[in-house]
């Protein structure tokens, strides 16, 4: 803070041309004895104009080569027939929209779409609901308990995806898993050797538990951080007016944190919808391709079945759906940016 005020104090008396001269890079000493008026203009327009572009160029170039180009390649690929044979002969067969028409008329594809959307919706609803509740709880806890719970959340948050998938497989192991033991201890029948990965649906339920467990900390801790900015006066005022806890939440907390809710919800939608490692590593999309969500479906159609063109079309359709969610997200972010 002291630095800040010092800075403003020294900066205040400086006039514009002096600043511009100081900024220019080429001449070593900024003091030109004679030509006080001329140089700033000339120097400013040349290096000053190019410099930002030079600084930005490496970043833009690398994103163009490794992000934009693969995206374009993905679009191009989706209009080609690239199967096992074409991969070996390396010939290019253009088939127009055939990959797309094939997919859109395919019941399997629509099945995966419905599954992915339902899976995302269930996940996000649970994450937002439980995350918010835990955030509210954090806000009400004493110092020590809050630290304990935050630390526990941190651990879950920090767990690398692949490691947590492995651990969840072990927790839900058919023979020696601790979850089967827990179910037995709680008195449920039929958990002697229950196979939690028996169907695609049950596999996805386990993936969902994993995702919810891993995603709640982000929502809860940020929710708590947001709540601390609401200010205790508001709560107190609401309480004095006799508002119940529920009422306080809807009329004081929620309106204040609405942007946070919206942005977090869309972020979670995007993250869950494109989740690959969790779904794939849990059971390789099985059993019987029953736990494939769109990203996994694209991967297996492509590298598993060697229908690369078709897989590229699946990716493009997935990306289009993601873009729909993202456009909402960006609108919210930009609005936020304008307001602040």
């Amino acid at each position: 803070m002291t630095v800040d005020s010092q800075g403003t104090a020294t900066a205040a008396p400086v006039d514009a041309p002096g600043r511009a001269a100081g900024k220019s890079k080429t001449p070593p000493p900024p003091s030109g004895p004679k030509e006080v008026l001329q140089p700033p203009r000339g120097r400013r327009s040349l290096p000053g104009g190019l410099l930002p572009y030079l600084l930005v160029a490496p970043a833009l170039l690398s994103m163009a080569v490794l992000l934009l180009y693969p995206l374009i390649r993905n679009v191009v690929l989706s209009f080609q027939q690239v199967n096992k044979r074409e991969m070996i002969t390396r010939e290019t067969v253009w088939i127009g929209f055939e990959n797309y028409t094939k997919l859109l008329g395919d019941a399997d594809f629509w099945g995966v779409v419905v599954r992915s959307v339902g899976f995302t919706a269930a996940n996000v609803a649970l994450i937002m609901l439980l995350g918010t509740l835990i955030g509210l709880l954090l806000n009400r806890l004493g110092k020590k308990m809050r630290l304990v719970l935050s630390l526990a959340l941190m651990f879950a948050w920090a767990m690398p995806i692949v490691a947590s998938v492995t651990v969840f497989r072990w927790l839900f192991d058919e023979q020696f898993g601790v979850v089967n033991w827990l179910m037995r201890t709680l008195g449920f029948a039929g958990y002697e050797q229950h196979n939690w990965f028996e169907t695609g649906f049950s596999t996805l339920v386990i993936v969902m538990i994993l995702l919810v467990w891993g995603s709640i900390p982000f929502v809860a801790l940020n929710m708590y951080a947001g709540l601390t900015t609401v200010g205790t006066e508001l709560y107190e005022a609401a309480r004095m007016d006799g508002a119940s806890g529920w009422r306080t939440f809807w009329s004081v907390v929620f309106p204040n944190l609405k942007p946070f809710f919206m942005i977090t919800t869309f972020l979670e939608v995007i993250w869950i919808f494109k989740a690959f490692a969790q779904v794939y590593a849990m059971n390789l999309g099985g059993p019987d391709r029953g736990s494939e969500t769109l990203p996994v479906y694209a991967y297996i159609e492509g590298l598993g079945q060697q229908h690369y063109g078709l897989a590229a079309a699946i990716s493009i359709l997935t990306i289009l759906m993601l873009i729909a969610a993202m456009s909402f997200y960006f609108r919210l972010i930009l609005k936020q940016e304008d307001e602040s």
Partner: protein
Amino acid sequence: MSTLTRTPRPAQTLRTKKPLRVGAVAKNVTAIVLALVFVFPVYWMFSSSLKPQSEILTKDPVFLFSPTTENYTTATGVDLFWTYVTNSLLVTVGAVLLALVVALAASFAIARMRFKGRKGLVLTVMMAQMAPWEVMVIAMYMIARDGDMLNSIPLLTLIYFVMVLPFTIWTLRGFIAAVPVELEEAAQIDGCTRGQAFRKVIFPLLAPGLMSTSLFGFITAWNEFAMVLVLNKDKEAQTLTLWLTQFQTAFGSDWGATMAASTLFALPVLIVFVFLQRRAVGGMTAGAVKG
């Protein structure tokens, strides 16, 4: 809550005294149960990794045991273990360092200079940050295959570099913007060139920002799974993420060793995270809420 209070209350004791009894106990119990639920998988991984074989494969779990390191010996004794470690380190460290250098330049321009297309650039970075890499693996595979770059560590490093770049630019932009312009100007008035002012004034103030940004980049690259799965089929070019998922299939029911492998993989990230703890929430909100 306040309905529970019986005594006529002076405004201050209203919340602090009475409701503590019932409310606070319920709250604290809930908090403890939740804490246990969230920590349990991590705890179970760690404790399983220290159990002797005979106490892992039991119907009823053993909670008290004499710890052993045999599982770690098994896990690290796997063929090519050190190759995977080296590959993981090469790829992550390379990607993060590259990203820092490139992002520092770009974020300085974004934070401190006015130029045509600046707003468009900011938007591009924001969109790139949301890039669905997991869905682009097929195209990436085709590109790598055509360029004869499958199983290449440098290519993987470059891909991870671009993966962490937008985030790095975005957070560094915030850190640079937080350094008062006046400091830089003061240095320039005292005779520094713009480059010197950056090196001597801004850069030292950025150190903590650089540190936490690079650690977040490290976590992203360390955890990456989809790209390396698709591009590097050759064992010699794989990273620890793939090693861990294959460990499970390769070792079947040797859960002790698998958990030891998980622990080894998770440990660096957990440590880094504890270190970042404070910044994590604030930093992520800054990323999420402010863009």
